[in-house]
């Protein structure tokens, strides 16, 4: 993620001044942000705030993937989309907003549902990925791709009054290298039975609950991007999961997670998941997750 760095323009010192003076960011961090490309998969309740704060911070290239259109029932929590955008592609609606917030960076639109065939070509162009989707099949697909292509993944989810956040494949190392961070399959080797999976449409979700998780995804992404070795080593020692519950006491809890699973189907020495198995269609994520009626998975 570290391409050639050139100094900032005068306007950028003005725009980013309040974060440039932070010792954790500084000029080096700002240049890293500028030279990094981030893919946000899903432009809903998580993706909207995540995209807004990453654009605000000056991430050089932001890619947005979503095949859905804006619906009125999205607006209570997907606060980039506005009432007059109902019916428009979510990617277009979000890009319209983001360009008005920060016209100095690059936005790439992927108006599509993600699948094993189209995903590798999209993911290849980015340094870091945010999973802002809403179903298990896409979560496994995104994690597998991040391992196979060597990208760190910031993954979050929310439902009702609760949220969960974890950073996967951090540091991003080749399959079989036990010093790499765990992947989604390390933590969840088997998918949940389909009948236990509740969507936000069925279970509901409160706007600021999913909003908090999305903003935290942006924060973790920035931390990964500006990371230098000493921070990275201290963090990667203990992979962790952040649990949030609006009515919990305490509301936030940090959980220590396991490291890479020696027999993980994706990140171990002898993985059964490969780019070839993805493109050949031999990996059916919807079947794997027990989806009876395989519609668009994103």
């Amino acid at each position, binding site marked *: 993620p570290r391409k050639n760095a050139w100094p900032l323009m005068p306007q950028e010192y003005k725009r980013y001044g309040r974060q440039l003076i932070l010792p954790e960011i500084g000029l080096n961090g700002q240049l890293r942000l500028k030279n990094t490309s981030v893919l946000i998969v899903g432009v809903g*309740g*998580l993706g909207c705030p995540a995209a807004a704060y990453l654009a605000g911070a000056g991430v050089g290239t932001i890619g947005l993937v979503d095949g859905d259109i804006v619906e009125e029932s999205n607006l209570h929590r997907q606060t980039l989309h506005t009432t007059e955008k109902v019916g428009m592609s979510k990617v277009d609606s979000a890009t319209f907003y983001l360009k008005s917030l920060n016209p100095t960076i690059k936005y790439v639109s992927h108006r599509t549902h993600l699948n094993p065939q189209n995903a590798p070509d999209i993911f290849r162009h980015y340094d870091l990925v945010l999973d802002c989707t*809403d179903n298990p099949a896409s979560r496994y697909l995104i994690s597998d791709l991040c391992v196979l292509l060597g990208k760190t993944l910031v993954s979050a989810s929310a439902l009702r009054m609760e949220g969960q956040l974890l950073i996967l494949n951090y540091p991003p190392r080749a399959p079989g290298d036990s010093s790499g961070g765990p992947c989604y399959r390390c933590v969840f080797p088997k998918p949940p*039975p389909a009948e236990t999976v509740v969507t*936000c449409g069925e279970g509901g979700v409160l706007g600021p609950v999913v909003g908090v998780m999305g903003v935290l995804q942006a924060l973790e992404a920035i931390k990964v991007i500006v990371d230098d070795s000493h921070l990275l080593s201290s963090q990667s020692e203990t992979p962790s999961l952040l*649990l949030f519950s609006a009515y919990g006491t305490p509301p936030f809890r940090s959980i220590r997670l396991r490291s890479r699973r020696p027999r993980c189907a994706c990140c171990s020495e002898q993985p059964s998941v490969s780019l070839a198995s993805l493109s050949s269609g031999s990996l059916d994520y919807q079947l794997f997750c027990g989806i009876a009626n395989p519609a668009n998975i994103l």
Partner: protein
Amino acid sequence: MADTGDNVHLTVEFSGGLEMLFSNRRKHSVSLPKISPKGTPVTIDFLVKYLCDHLMKDSRKDLFIMEDNVRPGILVLINDSDWELEGEADYEIQPNDNIMFVSTLHGG
């Protein structure tokens, strides 16, 4: 909470929707015998069956266990650590342990 006699006291928590299977309460105080009927110290494995038999009022047991194990998609946390760091189902319950069952969320 201290131990009284032959029981071990612990806190059991449910989140991510699992609390709905347990009287809609997130936090429960649970008291287990120190020694299982088999004569061995009580483990998480024992606790899971105990919760299923005694604490769970909901009849949909398969939303919590599958083939005698916690079902896929539920994280078991022992004092805020993934149970895989602590010996999984064989972990022996200690007094005042906090055991948490978290159903993973997928919405966004």
